């Protein structure tokens, strides 16, 4: 531990600290322009010059580069220091007369007007080298550097020509003390696949994220992007978050992992996707920023959303009239014939939020109000009491008017009249549908699907969580549209079914399963294609049946061209014997 005296008071310092470190740590103000804690001190702006007295010798040194040696006496405000900083700020102000940072610093040292003639009044760069160092030392993109020397020194890419080596990370713009660097989108598509500009590559996904920890966006993170450029080799670039994280919690080596697990049962809970309202053009989705889906409304009204939870139009004003259209894509033979079951209730919630947050008039276009759950009807009544206008009838068309307003047309079935309402915002309560890649899951587990695309349960009334494949269960919207309480109940039932299996430890299966005579099997694979339970695999070129999966349906037995598969306890001989027996009795 080193002891040194700064401005008359004693301070302690570590061996690797500089005078500037000690001063900053103890709240002693020293102006700097070329210093940044994430980079090696450079000592170019000389503004942090202080008087250092060592062994009785007094000298001016830069605090950013001078080690905090034991026994030093440092004066940060002596007349000699002030004079140097004053002259320096005069030089900087003459170079960059219109940069606020420079103006303010100069004023602190009593310089209000540039003492010398200015060559280029638009000059903002003070050649502190922070951008060069961040690009070369941290980002390791090595795109910009100094060229020429002395007073002609300037910063830029090689030959001051545009370069595609710039990854557009924006680190230089962040460290530049004078705002001399702008990132300009030159042509659409140059960086199409990567976001441009100072995007924080490490962030907490949303205020309500669980767990609430930051994630690294590898598409934006300089280190990962440099890794892409070095063909997968680990790039030692940037790593500022790791350097500065006191908890030492940053681990760049964490990767997505594929785990191989041997399990006895699987719960398929693959959920749903939102139906895309662009598929029906009458809703004009995409033609106005004010036609949004229910999901987008959720984001808008979320406290962690772009407006901090306020419901606003794109110009920042509050909407005065809002229409909410039910059954967009549901109960519609042009989209999905089924009822999505959740839209009525979330539409009512949206109506309530709009009323509550903006006081706007709300029009709900609905066909039937399906408030079937516990307490749902009461909520429906409450929303009606809040002054929401209920229009019974499908909102048929949304037009975008030339003045930007939206016109919703539909039929009011109660009045038997056609209706047109001009509103500022339209919320489309879009349908939910089975995920687009449900067919892959279906093939993987041998799951059936109903006509509407959801996975089929074993029995619609009596076995709602089981599937026809033993050990595979369904939970939530994978099986069909459900709201939150129904999903929780369904998932609970699926878990209980799995627990039942686990508790038993072993399963009893019917003895009528198919078996392959390996001598006769030619390995044609026809049985693999027809087995509805994915019970057959090819082992060493021949079919093999997993008896635990086989239901003894006999499809493979009937299909096998070489007659190599037989159903145990259900052989041709047994059937013929049964027939003979019946006939003999007769």
């Amino acid at each position, binding site marked *: 531990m080193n002891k040194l005296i700064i401005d008359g008071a004693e301070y302690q310092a570590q061996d690797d600290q500089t005078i500037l470190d000690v001063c900053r740590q103890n709240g002693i103000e020293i102006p700097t322009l070329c210093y940044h804690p994430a980079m090696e001190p450079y000592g*170019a702006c000389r503004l942090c010059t202080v008087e250092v007295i060592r062994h009785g010798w007094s000298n001016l040194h830069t605090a950013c580069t001078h080690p905090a040696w034991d026994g030093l006496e440092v004066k940060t405000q002596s007349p000699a220091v002030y004079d140097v900083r004053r002259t320096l700020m005069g030089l900087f102000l003459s170079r960059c007369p219109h940069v606020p940072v420079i103006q303010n610093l100069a004023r602190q040292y009593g310089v209000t007007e540039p003492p010398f003639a200015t060559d280029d009044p638009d000059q903002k760069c003070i050649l502190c080298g922070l951008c060069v160092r961040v690009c070369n030392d941290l980002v390791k993109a090595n795109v910009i550097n100094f060229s020429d020397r002395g*007073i002609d020194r300037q910063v830029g890419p090689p030959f001051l020509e545009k370069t595609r080596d710039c990854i557009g990370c924006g680190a230089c713009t962040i460290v530049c003390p004078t705002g001399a660097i702008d990132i300009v989108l030159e042509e659409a598509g140059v960086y199409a696949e990567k976001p441009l500009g100072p995007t924080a590559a490490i962030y907490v996904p949303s205020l309500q994220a669980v767990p609430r920890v930051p994630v690294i966006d590898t598409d934006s993170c300089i280190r990962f992007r440099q890794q892409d450029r070095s063909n997968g080799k680990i790039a030692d670039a940037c790593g500022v978050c790791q350097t500065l994280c006191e908890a030492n919690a940053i681990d760049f080596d964490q990767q997505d992992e594929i785990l191989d697990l041997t399990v006895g049962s699987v719960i398929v809970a693959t959920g749903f996707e939102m139906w895309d309202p662009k598929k029906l053009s009458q809703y004009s989705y995409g033609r106005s920023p004010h036609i949004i889906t229910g999901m987008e409304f959720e984001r808008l009204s979320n406290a962690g959303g772009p407006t901090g939870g306020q419901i606003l139009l794109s110009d920042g004003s509050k909407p005065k009239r809002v229409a909410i259209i039910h059954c967009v894509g549901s109960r519609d033979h042009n989209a999905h014939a089924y009822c999505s079951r959740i839209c009525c209730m979330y539409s009512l919630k949206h109506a309530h939020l709009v009323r509550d947050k903006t006081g706007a008039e709300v029009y709900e276009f609905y066909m039937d109000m399906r408030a079937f759950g516990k307490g749902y009807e009461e909520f429906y009544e409450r929303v009606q009491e809040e002054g929401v206008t209920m229009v019974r009838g499908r909102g048929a068309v949304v037009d975008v008017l030339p003045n930007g307003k939206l016109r919703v047309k539909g039929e009011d079935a109660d009045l038997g009249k056609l209706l047109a309402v001009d509103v500022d915002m339209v919320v489309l309560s879009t349908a939910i549908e089975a995920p687009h890649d449900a067919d892959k899951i279906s093939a993987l587990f041998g799951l059936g699907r109903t006509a509407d695309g959801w996975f089929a349960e074993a029995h619609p009334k009596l076995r709602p969580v089981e599937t026809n494949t033993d050990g595979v269960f369904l939970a939530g919207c994978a099986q069909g549209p459900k709201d939150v309480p129904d999903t929780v109940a369904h998932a609970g039932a699926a878990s209980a079914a799995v627990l039942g299996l686990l508790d038993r430890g072993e399963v009893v299966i019917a003895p009528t399963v198919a078996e392959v005579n390996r001598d006769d099997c030619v390995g044609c694979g026809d049985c693999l294609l027809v087995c509805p339970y994915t019970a057959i695999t090819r082992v060493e070129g021949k079919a093999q049946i997993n008896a635990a999966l086989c239901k003894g349906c006999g499809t493979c037995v009937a299909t096998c061209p070489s007659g190599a598969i037989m159903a145990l306890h259900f052989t041709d001989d047994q059937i013929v014997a049964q027939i003979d027996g019946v006939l003999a009795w007769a």
Partner: protein
Amino acid sequence: MADLYRADVLISCLHGQSADLAPTFRQEIERRGMAGEVRVVETGCRGFCSVGPVVSIQPDGEFYVNVQPADVPEIVEETLVKGRPVQRLTYKEPTTRKSITKYDDIPFYGKQMRIVFRNTGLIDPQSIDEYIAVGGYEALGKVLTSMTPEEVIEEVKKSGLRGRGGAGFRTGRKWESTRKAKGDVKYVIANGDEGDPGAFMDRSLMEGDPHAVLEGMAIAGFAVGANQGYVYVRDEYPLAVKNLNLAIQQAHEYGLLGEDILGSGFAFDIGIVRGAGAFVCGESSALMQSLEGKVGEPRSKHVHATDRGLWDRPSCLNNVETLANIPVIMLRGAEWFASIGTENSKGTKGFCLVGKIRNPGLIEVPMGMTLKEIIYDIGGGPPRGRKVKAVQTGGPSGGCIPTSRLDLAVDYETLSQAGSMMGSGGMIALDDRTCMVDISRFFLEFLKDESCGKCAPCREGIKRMLEILTAISNGDAKMGDIDTLETLAKTVQAASLCGLGKSAPNPVLSTLQYFRQEYEQHITEKFCPSGVCRSLVAYVVVDDKCKGCGLCIKVCSQESIAGSAKQPHVIDQATCIQCGACFDACRFDAIQVIPRSQVELLPKQEVHA
């Protein structure tokens, strides 16, 4: 073994038109059938630039000056065949016009003491045999076979040798720090990046005696514990690069470099790194950056290079002149070396004596010689009719010392105290036709171009100082500008990052110290008494003194002077460009410099060209 010859023709001055001399000599000697008995050797620099090219004939030591290829047959006929000097080509003592035949008798060399340049001009730099013949590598042998590294360092410390690159750091101390620094790999670096305009000591040394540098480096390597050395030499010195490369190759062949030198087990190798000629690369940290292949920019030196230098390893960087002293110190002993020079500055120093002086050239004098002795006794004083006004030492970042202080003894301390510095050894004599504002401006112009631009005070400050100086010499300045100039100079001196910046204001500060009145005259009277700042002066003919000789008419490039023979001439002020050629040419002091503002007061005179 080398063949034996009865005579050697030593040709120095290998630059410029003298390149033809050696081939001409060889042809002539061949023609006379003496090829087997007389040898022609191209040696290094003799330093006597004012009379070059010089040729000397050994073993008798005839010394011929201003030799042209046309003179060659006569020299061969008279000296080599008939054995008598060619009087016409010998050096003539300027005052008595007496002919001096032998090299040793010439006063230019009389007061000099050649330790560093002991061999330049006398041996063939491309032959290791010749270097060995004059005692070369004997010191390395002595060190490797009979001394420990500590003893070598002790000897260098006792000798009092200090860095010849300018700052004058004690060489022994530097070696000791490097030896004590932690690390397996250490380096010895020879700084041959001589950047001062008009300086060529290092160049002459590397061209004329490369082995002396290599031997010094090898001894340094042994002392500090390094097995690798680098010579950093600017690429503008192609002959130096060539001779050094050749010397390294020869030393390898003789086992004087490489593994197990002289059977001692000590290994040392030397590489050559060519610099691109940036002045700032003479600064040690910038030089090492450049050596590492980076842009040559200085960095803060709170940790010394002896601890963390090249590639962050302990590095001992010495000037080539410092290193060339080492073999002599090792052979003749520290006491002998310490007996030369002053209390704190031992040995000799090479200077490039240039400027308004009769005998410009490369000289080597013992420390402590006065500036007066150097300028007048060796340099021969100013040319006819001129007076020495000041001496500028230390290169572009040195300072000007006025005539009143010419009895200063030249050593590190006295020069710094006088506001100048030793530097690498530039010495420019300035006469009364030199404007001190202009000379500051000249050096700052150079420094503005050579500043690397890393730190703000040097980059921005030099530019602003130069602007003020330009304004002063154009007559656009006001009195307060001198104070601004001084403030700027002091800030640049105090706050700059490296030695270049810290010493950049020296030309301004030293001229302000000694010639402030001349600055003020520029501002208040709008007049440059030396006639250099053209915007401020006019040249007129003094009728009483003009003899009408017409010499000025001949030299005037603008045809601005008219006048008939034996009648006073007239200068047409409308076309005169104030070049001052007439002033310099006039033998009767009939041309006078007056302030520009007084031109309108002159009686109107018609000029008939």
